[in-house]
């Protein structure tokens, strides 16, 4: 900030520093993608080139590597991809519809104990999953849920603390006159919610969908703990299995598999990065 609008030399050195930061932060992902389209021998050589040699072999080498990952006899990535999509879709859908109703009630409908409930809700966000995982496993075992996808998404149908908190902040920010006018017109809380608040909350809902999608897509520990059958594996479990399976996985193929699991979140992020960064603020500073 000290250099703001100062000499050209100062501005140039600031730009150069920014470029260094950009390269350092982007390099791991670039190197992952670069390795994923090289033949194994070139991936292992000390060279720093980003493309295979000869460069024209890149498309066919990419086909070969990604094809080998998808056709792996022991790690069924297409199945894990389908499993992940099912689990994430069920979890995000349940999370959004329940959280939006709970958040509206918490923000706009009269009830006793609103403040303590909000505090407890935020408090649960501070409880690390490892603290809960052992008793949750026993609970799910008693319910007969081990061996199904239920442990990964069922709880979100009753709401998700972070989503409720974000939506609560949004509904709280709507002007009070809105529901006063609606109540004079004889609208019930439900009608006010359905016809006035919900249509206004489209952006806030998009943020919840994005964040919960990313969270569930990326989650590793919950699937690791609750999923025991290989047929029920998610992509993240599959990727870990692929890396640790007997007879070392070649690096170029491991990077191809990693690229495949990263790509969906990355595409969503690139398309929506403004929403992402803004939401990480609203969730954070206003606590």
């Amino acid at each position, binding site marked *: *900030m000290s250099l703001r609008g100062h000499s050209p030399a100062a501005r140039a050195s600031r730009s150069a520093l920014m470029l260094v*930061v950009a390269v350092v932060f982007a390099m791991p992902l670039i190197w992952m993608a670069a*390795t994923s389209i090289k033949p194994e021998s070139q991936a292992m*050589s000390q060279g*720093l080139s980003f493309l295979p040699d000869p460069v024209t072999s890149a498309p066919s080498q990419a086909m070969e590597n990604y094809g080998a990952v998808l056709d792996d006899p022991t790690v069924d990535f297409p199945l894990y991809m389908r499993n992940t999509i099912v689990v994430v879709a069920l979890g995000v859908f349940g999370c959004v519809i329940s959280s939006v109703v709970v958040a509206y009630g918490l923000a706009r409908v009269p009830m006793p104990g609103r403040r303590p409930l909000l505090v407890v809700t935020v408090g649960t966000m501070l409880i690390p999953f490892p603290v809960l995982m052992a008793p949750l496993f026993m609970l799910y075992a008693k319910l007969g849920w081990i061996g199904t996808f239920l442990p990964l998404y069922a709880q979100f149908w009753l709401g998700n603390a972070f989503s409720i908190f974000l939506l609560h902040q949004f509904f709280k920010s709507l002007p009070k006159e809105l529901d006063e006018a609606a109540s004079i017109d004889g609208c019930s809380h439900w009608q006010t919610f359905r016809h006035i608040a919900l249509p206004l909350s489209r952006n806030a809902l998009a943020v919840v969908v994005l964040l919960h999608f990313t969270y569930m897509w990326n989650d590793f520990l919950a699937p690791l703990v609750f999923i025991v059958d290989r047929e029920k594996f998610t992509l993240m479990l599959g990727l870990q299995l692929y*890396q640790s399976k007997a007879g070392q996985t070649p690096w170029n193929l491991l990077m191809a598999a990693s690229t495949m699991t990263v790509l969906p979140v990355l595409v969503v992020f690139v398309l929506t990065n403004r929403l992402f960064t803004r939401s990480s603020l609203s969730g954070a*500073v206003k606590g």
Partner: protein
Amino acid sequence: MSAAGRSRFAGLLWVLPWLIGLCVFFLAPMGLGAYYSMTDYTMLEPPLWVGLDNYASLASDPVFHRAVLNTIVYAAFVIPLSVVLALAIAGLLDVDSRLSRLVRVLVFTPTVVPLVASAMIWLWLFNGDHGLINAVLHMLGLSGPNWLGERGFAMAALVVMALWSIGQPVVIYLAALQDVPRELYEAGQLDGMGPVRRFVHVAMPSIAPAVFFNVIIQTITAWQVFAAPYIMTEGGPDRSTYFYSHYLYDNAFLFQRMGYASAMAWVQLMLIAACILAIYAVTRKLWSTGT
């Protein structure tokens, strides 16, 4: 609907799903955990009441001490380094230009990359024989270690990897910096303050709450670090990267010691609460002596 719908209690119906969710998925597991922590429980036989034995065993379990110490060492590096680095990057990016906006996106990107994929990427970057990091060091005339296979270096590698995903604090600090009134900087400049002093005396008071918030969040995160060491080092070499949550996981799901793991879970909560209180106390002290 309307009579009941307008009553003082109408909201309870709206939050009912979440009340049930809280009870079933948070309160019940915590209560169950408290009970199991006072039992011997292998999941195969019914739990056997042992009182506070599990907690007593923790006190004399060298592996537990090791895991606590490792986690503290990791946090002691990651948290201060990430505060400094994130503040520096935020300060650097606090200009309105196209390049700055692009770099913000690039710095935030690692935070959306799945931890398992990050682990694979850094496993490859830190590879002793063929990794990019040692290749670059080689070009500079240095010979890099077998990062993940040597004590000390393995911990350092995990710290570096954690610093890759500081996008969240950077974004928060950037927003806080943008709230600092520009006139204050100019006043500081007129008074002959250098950039560093201006940062400490002008910007710091406005961003201190954001730093406090981030340190708390990162403390909680550090106590649950699991995926990266589990995949990249399996806690090694020689348990030098064996962290709290990893040992808890192993007790619960590898050694089938559910009672012991439940005791660890409660101790973990207590340790986190103690850390937060300590940070709070230190911050208040700094605050009162600083002003």
